[in-house]
C-alpha cells in the first residue's frame, strides 16, 4: 500500500447550501503532481476512506482543492469533511486516476456534469481550454446557486457552458444533446447514476461508439432516497438490517462476513449478490449491469445498490 500524505487544511469555504470547498497543503513536503481527472482518498479518523476528485488542474503551488457535498443522511464522510477547519490535519493517499482524459485523439470533447459530479471534469476542461480544444460543458443541478464553480466555469467557457437548473424549470435534453454531437465526439460525464444510465441508454440506442462515452461514478444517490432494509442470507442463517447510512456491503462486513469486493463504487461487479427472493424494489446504482440485467433483478451490486423499503434474501460467493 502506498504511504499516506499528512496534510493540513488551509481554507474552507461554502460554495452553496450544501457544498464545501476544502483546500489543503502537505504538512511535511510538497504535494505530488497530478493529472486531469485524478482523485485522492481521504482517510478519516474513524477508519472510513472516501474518494474525492481534485478540482482544477495541477498548479504546483502545494495546494489541493476538493469540493464535498453534504449528503443526508451522511454516510459519515461528508459530515466530517464539512466540520473541517483551517489547521486541521487530513491524511490522504497520493493521487490516482480511473477517469483518464485521453489526449491522443483530436476528437471534439463534450462534458456533462450533474451537481457535484462537476469536480473531476474541471481539471480536464481547464487543460483542454489551454490547448485550445474548445470543450463544451452541459451542467445540471437543482439550482444555479447550489451548483459549485458555476461562475468560474462561465468565465472560462462563456457560451460553451450550457446550464440547466431545476428551480428555473430548465432541464437538459439528454437525447437532444447526444443526437447533436459530432460523429467523432467524446462525451465525459460524471453525476448521479440515473443520469449516467440514461445517457448510456441513449448512446447505445443511437449506435454511437461505446468507447467515446467516458464516465466516472460517484456511488451516491439513486432513484429512491436511502432507507433501511432487511436482508437474510439463508446459507449463513443470517438476518440483518441495513441502516439508511450504510451500504449492504458495509453491513455484511460489520457483522463479520467477508464478501468479495474491489471498486466499491458499482463498476467492477465483484461484490454482486444473487437475489433469492425480493419484497420491494431494487434501486440499482451501479454501472456494471446492463439495462436488461438491472430489470431482471436477479442480482445487484452490494457496494452501492439498495432495496427501497422492503426486504431481500440473498446469496453470494
Amino acid at each position, binding site marked *: 500500500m502506498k504511504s499516506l500524505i499528512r496534510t493540513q487544511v488551509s481554507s474552507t469555504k461554502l460554495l452553496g447550501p450544501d457544498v464545501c470547498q476544502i483546500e489543503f497543503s502537505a504538512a511535511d513536503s510538497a504535494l505530488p503532481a497530478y493529472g486531469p481527472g485524478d482523485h485522492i482518498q481521504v482517510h478519516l479518523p474513524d477508519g472510513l476512506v472516501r474518494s474525492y476528485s481534485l478540482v482544477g488542474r*495541477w498548479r504546483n503551488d502545494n495546494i489541493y482543492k476538493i469540493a464535498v457535498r453534504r449528503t443526508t443522511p451522511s454516510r459519515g464522510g461528508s459530515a466530517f469533511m464539512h466540520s473541517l477547519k483551517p489547521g486541521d490535519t487530513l491524511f490522504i493517499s497520493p493521487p490516482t486516476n480511473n477517469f483518464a482524459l*485521453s489526449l*491522443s485523439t483530436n476528437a471534439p470533447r463534450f462534458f456533462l456534469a450533474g451537481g457535484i459530479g462537476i469536480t473531476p471534469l474541471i481539471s480536464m476542461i481547464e*487543460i483542454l481550454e489551454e490547448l485550445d480544444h474548445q470543450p463544451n460543458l452541459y451542467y445540471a443541478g437543482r439550482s444555479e446557486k447550489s451548483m459549485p464553480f458555476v461562475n468560474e466555469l462561465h468565465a472560462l467557457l462563456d457560451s460553451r457552458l450550457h446550464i440547466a437548473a431545476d428551480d428555473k424549470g430548465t432541464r437538459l435534453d439528454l437525447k437532444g444533446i447526444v443526437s447533436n454531437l459530432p460523429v467523432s465526439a467524446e462525451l465525459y460525464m460524471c453525476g448521479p447514476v440515473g443520469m449516467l444510465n440514461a445517457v448510456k441508454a441513449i448512446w447505445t440506442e443511437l449506435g454511437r461508439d461505446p*468507447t467515446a462515452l467516458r464516465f466516472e461514478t460517484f456511488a451516491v444517490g439513486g432513484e429512491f432516497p436511502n432507507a433501511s432494509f432487511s436482508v437474510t442470507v439463508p446459507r449463513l442463517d443470517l438476518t440483518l438490517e441495513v441502516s439508511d447510512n450504510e451500504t449492504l456491503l458495509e453491513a455484511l462486513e460489520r457483522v463479520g462476513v467477508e464478501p468479495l469486493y474491489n471498486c466499491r463504487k458499482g*463498476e467492477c*461487479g465483484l461484490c454482486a449478490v444473487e437475489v433469492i427472493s425480493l419484497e420491494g424494489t431494487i434501486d440499482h446504482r451501479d454501472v456494471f449491469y446492463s439495462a436488461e440485467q438491472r430489470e431482471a433483478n436477479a442480482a445487484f451490486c452490494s457496494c452501492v445498490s439498495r432495496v427501497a423499503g422492503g426486504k431481500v434474501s440473498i446469496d453470494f460467493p
Partner: protein
Amino acid sequence: MFPLNAWYIAGWDHQIGRHLLQRQICNKRMVLYRKQDGSAVALDDACWHRLVPLSAGKLNGDNVACPYHGLEFNGAGRCVHMPSQETLNPSACVHSYPVIERHRFVWVWPGDPQLADAARIPNLYQNDHPDWAGDGGTTHLECDYRLLIDNLMDLTHETFVHASSIGNAAVAEAPFRVSQDDEKVIVTRWMLDIDPPPFFRKQLADVKVDRWQIINFRAPSAVTIDVGVAPTGTGAPEGDRSKGVTGFVVHVATPETETSCNYYWAFLRNYELRSQRLTTDWRESARTIFGEDKHILELQQRAILENPGREFYPLNIDGGALLARRRIDEMLKSEQGLVKSKSATESVVHLHREAVQ
C-alpha cells in the same frame, strides 16, 4: 537518466506494421502496431486487467486483444471488449502514447501527453526528401544512450576506431570549434589539404582534399553530422562544395533502459540520387563503421559498471559532449518530481505563445 517529455524513435516506418511489436523505451514497455488506415499506435504493454503483455496477444482489426482473457483495447487504449459481462468497466484502459510519423521514423512521447508538441521533433527532412538519397538501419547497443552521444560529439575517435574507413591522423589533429545556440550544440571541424580517408577516397579521385564535419546535437538524443570532402583549393571552406561530395548522417538514440538503447542511423547524400549502388554501399559502410562504435561503447559500459563511483576525466576534445550532457541534464532537472507539473505547464504556455506569433 533520460527525459520523458521528449520524442523518441520507436522504429523505422517499415518496422511498424499490421503486427504487434514490443519496444522498451525509457524503461516503459510499449506495444506498437498500425491501424487499418495506416496510422501507428503505441500502447502500454500491460493489460489493464492482469498486466499480461498485450504484445503477446493478437491484432484484431484496429484493436489489440490480450492473450490471457481476451480483453480488447482500441488504438486510443480504451477497452472495447470484456469477457463474461454485458457492460464495459468505465476505468478500463491502457495508456496510449502520442505517436507521430515523420522523416521515415515513428516517434513516441513517453512523458506527459499534454506537452507532446510535434514541433519538438528534430528536423531530419533529408531522410525523406527528393533532393536526398540514402538509407539507414538500427543497431542495438548495450550501453547508456549518452555514451553514444559522447561518441558522436567528438569524432577524434575516428582515427582509432574507424582507421579502415573514415579515420586518419588528420581527424585527431585538426582543431575544432564548439558553439551552441538555443536549439543545438555544434562542433565544427575542418581538415584542410589532407589525404582523404579510405571511404572518401572511393568517392573522389585520390587527390588532396579539404574535409569537413559539422556536428549538430538536439537534446535529448539526436545528432546530425554534415560531412564531406572537396579537392583542396576548390573553395569548400568558403562555401562552394560543388566539386566535392556531401553526406548527411543521422544518428538518433532511443534509451531502452539505463544501460541499453537502440541506435537509429541513416547515411544520406545529395548527388547521384538514383544510384542504388551508392545507397547500398553507403548504408553497409555505415553499418560496419557503427558496428565498430558498438564494440567500443559496450566495452566502455561494462567498464563503467565494473568501476562504480569512478568518473570520467574530461579533456579539451570533450567540450561538445559536455555541453550536450548539460542540455540533457537541464531537461531532466525541469522534470524532476513533477512529470505533470508547473515547468511542464510553462512549456505549454510558451508553445502557445510561439503559435500566436
